[in-house]
């Protein structure tokens, strides 16, 4: 957590969510919104554009999250976007989730897959990771069609790549 502004905002989000008592839901919603910003360049540039009036940017957030997220999540996203930190929102959310997991003595395992994992698969994967690395993790799934099949798990700087994409890349390298 090298950026102090990111850590500060993450801590603030964690405090608010914890105070509201819906930390797990807020985590999932913020995680989903952060992934949406990562994958949508237009949305990211719009929310991070200082030339766009703050009211317009907050209106966009309200339009996106209205009826899709809790009031706490909407308020937290509006806080960050209104402060002009929309570009840092994905990093803030990641730090928030890590902070939240750390409060439960857990790490965050970001799992990329072409399809969503079932609850059973998430639980078994968490157990497998704990078995292999000794870390108690919380699974955060990112739907990424480029993975094609299989799973890519990121725990901090560690990456466990079991995707079909990796195998195709290995096959491509073998041709060279």
């Amino acid at each position: 957590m090298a950026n102090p502004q990111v850590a500060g905002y993450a801590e603030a989000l964690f405090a608010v969510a914890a105070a509201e008592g819906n930390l797990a839901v807020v985590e999932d919603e913020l995680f989903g919104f952060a992934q949406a910003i990562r994958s949508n360049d237009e949305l990211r540039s719009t929310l991070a554009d200082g030339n766009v009036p703050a009211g317009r940017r907050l209106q966009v957030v309200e339009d996106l999250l209205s009826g899709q997220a809790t009031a706490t999540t909407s308020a937290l996203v509006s806080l960050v976007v209104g402060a002009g930190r929309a570009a840092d929102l994905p990093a803030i959310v990641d730090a928030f989730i890590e902070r939240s997991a750390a409060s439960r003595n857990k790490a965050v395992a970001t799992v990329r897959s072409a399809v969503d994992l079932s609850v059973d698969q998430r639980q078994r994967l968490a157990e497998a990771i704990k078995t292999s690395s000794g870390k108690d993790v919380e699974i955060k799934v990112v739907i990424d069609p480029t993975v094609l099949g299989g799973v890519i798990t990121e725990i901090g700087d560690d990456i466990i790549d079991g995707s079909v994409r990796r195998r195709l890349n290995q096959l491509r390298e073998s041709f060279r």
Partner: protein
Amino acid sequence: MSKLRNRLLVAPLLAVLGLVALAGPASASGESVGGCMAELFTEAIEEAHGDVAHAAHDVAVQSALEKCFEAPSPIIPEVNEIIWGGSAFLILFVIMAKKGFPAVKGAMDARADKIRDDLDAADQAKTDAQSVKTDYEAQLADAKAESSRIINEARVTADQLKADLAVQAEASIAEMRERAAADVESSRQQAIADLRTEVASIALGAAERVVQSSLNAEVHGNLIDAYIDEVAENNG
């Protein structure tokens, strides 16, 4: 020279004057046929004491008169002519001996000296020309030798240059061949690599499409389960 020329002109002039001056007395001493006859007839008249007819019919007088018709000797001149001619000759001879002959001799000597000098000069000129000719021939021989040497050197240089150019051309050709062979080999390798990449890309694209078409929910589930098992088995 002008003095000698004057003497040469004066000598014949004096000779002509002498002849003209002395010719008069010589011709005057001679008698005509009429004069002879008149003189003889006068003498005969005087001997006949004035009797002209007697004198005219005298046979002796007539014979003497007939002698007046006889020509003088064609060989022996008259005595007075001999005297006048001899005197003129002597005078002319003396004049010529004193004035004409020395002048002619001097002119002849001068002419001889001039001719001798001219001959000497001609000999000297001939000698000089011979020397010049000898020098020229020597220079010509040297020039011929030099030209031959230069031609030989040029021929040797040309041969050497030709050989060097041939060697350089061979080297250049060999280098070009090697370079061309290397280029061909490089192009071949590049073509093979490009073809391999293209084939791999096509094969991978086809494989990806096959995989995508075969990835249904069950396959995804199986892949995820296999991944979980693999992570679980990778203990430590």
